[in-house]
């Protein structure tokens, strides 16, 4: 694309656009700065001046408190989140493309019925209560590790459709035919030809799935009551619940609110800890992330 800026009208236009984008970017980032700066502010300064965009009095006490006093809890939650994310994403990458590949093959006999089975889950679902009852009463996953792994997150019909259409477009039938003439079995073709050629979409959708697992708290809220199994997001969720209790007390008299506040900064530090790994990794996976969003937005 060879574009150039032509004329003053265009120049003004560019300036306006840049200003708009600048403002939007600042708006997107400022809340994160509030979060980080508050987590590095000393308690007494927070109590006097509230959360701010610049630490009025620098202190890393909140982090020290979390990583020294509550080390076990934090590391446990981290470990659970990391394990769930890794296992969940691996299972997704193992199962989802394997279901999508036969459906992408025009010469596959049972393509129609299985495609319909996948598609139908997008049209109708049993609803949250029914799913909850099935998972807890039939499969008994309440308060087990599997509760973080299996319900709803592992693979969705939409992902299958994305994999399927990508494979249908990128893998030419003649390629498969040639491999078969050379004596390759179906599974061998899948592993050695289809998967390597699908790497970009595997990366994009695998990443989306991984972020989904990392950020998930809903399964935990429904299926986990045992704090030993709390993932990072669930720990954050339960601390948010304590704020709730706190603010309810605060409604009757503000003095109790102030007295209980040593946790003001710690909560913000907790939130930072919960997002930090993703933020650090973001520049590296940004491209795949954008690809994942674009794929999800426009079919085909």
């Amino acid at each position: 694309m060879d574009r150039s800026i032509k004329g003053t009208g265009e120049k003004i236009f560019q300036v306006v656009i840049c200003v708009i984008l600048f403002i939007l970017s600042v708006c997107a980032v400022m809340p994160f700065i509030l979060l980080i700066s508050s987590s590095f502010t000393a308690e007494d300064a927070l109590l006097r001046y509230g959360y701010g965009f610049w630490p009025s009095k620098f202190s890393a006490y909140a982090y020290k408190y979390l990583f020294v006093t509550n080390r076990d809890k934090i590391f446990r939650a981290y470990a659970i989140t990391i394990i769930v994310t890794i296992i969940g994403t691996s299972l997704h990458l193992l199962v989802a493309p394997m279901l999508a590949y036969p459906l992408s093959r025009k010469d596959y006999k049972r393509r129609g019925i299985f495609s319909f089975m996948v598609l139908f889950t997008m049209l109708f679902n049993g609803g949250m209560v029914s799913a909850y009852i099935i998972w807890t009463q039939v499969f008994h996953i309440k308060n087990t590790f599997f509760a973080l792994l299996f319900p709803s997150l592992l693979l969705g019909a939409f992902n299958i459709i994305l994999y399927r259409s990508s494979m249908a477009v990128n893998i030419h039938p003649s390629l498969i035919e040639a491999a078969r003439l050379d004596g390759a079995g179906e599974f061998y073709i899948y592993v050695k030809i289809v998967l390597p050629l699908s790497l970009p979409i595997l990366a994009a959708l695998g990443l989306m799935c991984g972020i989904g697992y990392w950020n998930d708290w809903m399964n935990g809220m429904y299926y986990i009551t045992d704090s030993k199994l709390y993932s990072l997001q669930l720990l954050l969720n339960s601390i948010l619940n304590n704020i709730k209790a706190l603010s309810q007390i605060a409604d009757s008299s503000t003095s109790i609110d102030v007295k209980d506040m040593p946790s003001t900064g710690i909560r913000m530090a907790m939130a930072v800890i919960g997002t930090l790994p993703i933020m650090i990794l973001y520049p590296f996976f940004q491209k795949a992330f954008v690809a994942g969003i674009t794929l999800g937005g426009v079919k085909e």
Partner: protein
Amino acid sequence: MEKKSFFSPERRAGIAALVLAVIGFVVYALPFAHYRYNSSYYSLSGYDLAAGKAIMNGSVQVNPVIYQWVALACICVSVVFAVIMLLQKMPKLSALFIFIAGAVQIIMQVITLVTIKDILDGAKRVAVEPGMYGGMAVGLALIVCACYLLTKKEVLSTLDFMVIPGLTYLIINNYLPMVGIQIAWKKLDFSVGIWRSPWCGWENFKFLFASGDAGMIIRNTIAYNAFWIVLGIFTGMAVGICLAEVFSKIVQRVSQTLILLPQLISMVIVAYIVYGFLSTSAGWINKGLLGNAEINWYGVKKYWPFILTIVHVWKGLGYSSIIYLSGIVGIDRNLYEASYIDGCGKMKQITKITVPMMKPTIVTLLIMSCGRIMYSDFGLFYQVTMNSGALYTVTTTLDVYVYRALMQLNNLSMSSAASAFQSICGFFLVMTVNQITRWLDRENAMF
């Protein structure tokens, strides 16, 4: 052509099935369950379960178990078809029957396993013994044996086996809840289980709609969604156009990266951030912006439609703008060049080229989001509002209501009715929306 050896696939499978059937008959003589009563111990074999047995000198009678009858019949069936296979007649049909026999065998053993307490009614301690698992193993082996022959006969291909794990997950995660939706018409009693609970007609729905909350909840769900769909089109398109039109690639890349940042984090973190702004005693708005104001944000309803809208736009803007951007980038650049030569300014290009060219995408996205108008972002309405009771009338959407009724109030009848209402409405909306898309543009319809 293949040379005909004595060990053709049919014969191999037939021999294997025959051997398995014999093993099956032997397994049935093994203890399937045991029964303790008054410190005496009775072991029951598979045949005992099928035929019924008088134990404790006839004072206790174990009735014949129909499931074991069926399971035994399955093994007999597989013997018959194994012989047919050995005669090299109707291989596909017999393989199919052996497959079914194996599957039914497993299902029957599982049913016996689950209901063993009811079968041995009155026993002190009931337990299952290895024989029952042996029965399941025989069933599984029969299935494998049948699959072998079906694969050899090219009825099944490797591709069929590849879809199994994924479809199994979909059946468990999506199809079983579809069957389970019946609980909305049932009076659920956990002591007898989901399937045997009594039906109660439309009672649960009557309760839900009589409670008076239903109207408010549905209004909230639809109103927020409708407003946000429209708002999302305008903001997403505007930002998408800005990103597409900006000349500097660095500005484009950096701003796109930054605007996407909120999309990465979970709603729990968003709730913390919002708390950082709105906390009564320490929030930035009260302390920093307004200087020691004491507005109790989490207690006043009238602010929340605005706050939720701001948070929603903040989190979703990057996502929607990138979707529109990818559409705009796909527009033919020559159109712009030609319009420039004809003397069009930028604004005119946007209104006369970009927007009209994007219309199909916009309409598709609009219609698709209308299909999900009954669903809401649970995290936004539950976490960000901190589930504050004072805000319920403006923040309760269907998803929030279902969660609250199920997990906090333990009101199974109301929550199941609301949840079933949501998914049935959702189904009809999606079908309608898809039909409309088909009329407008065949290409973009889902099916």
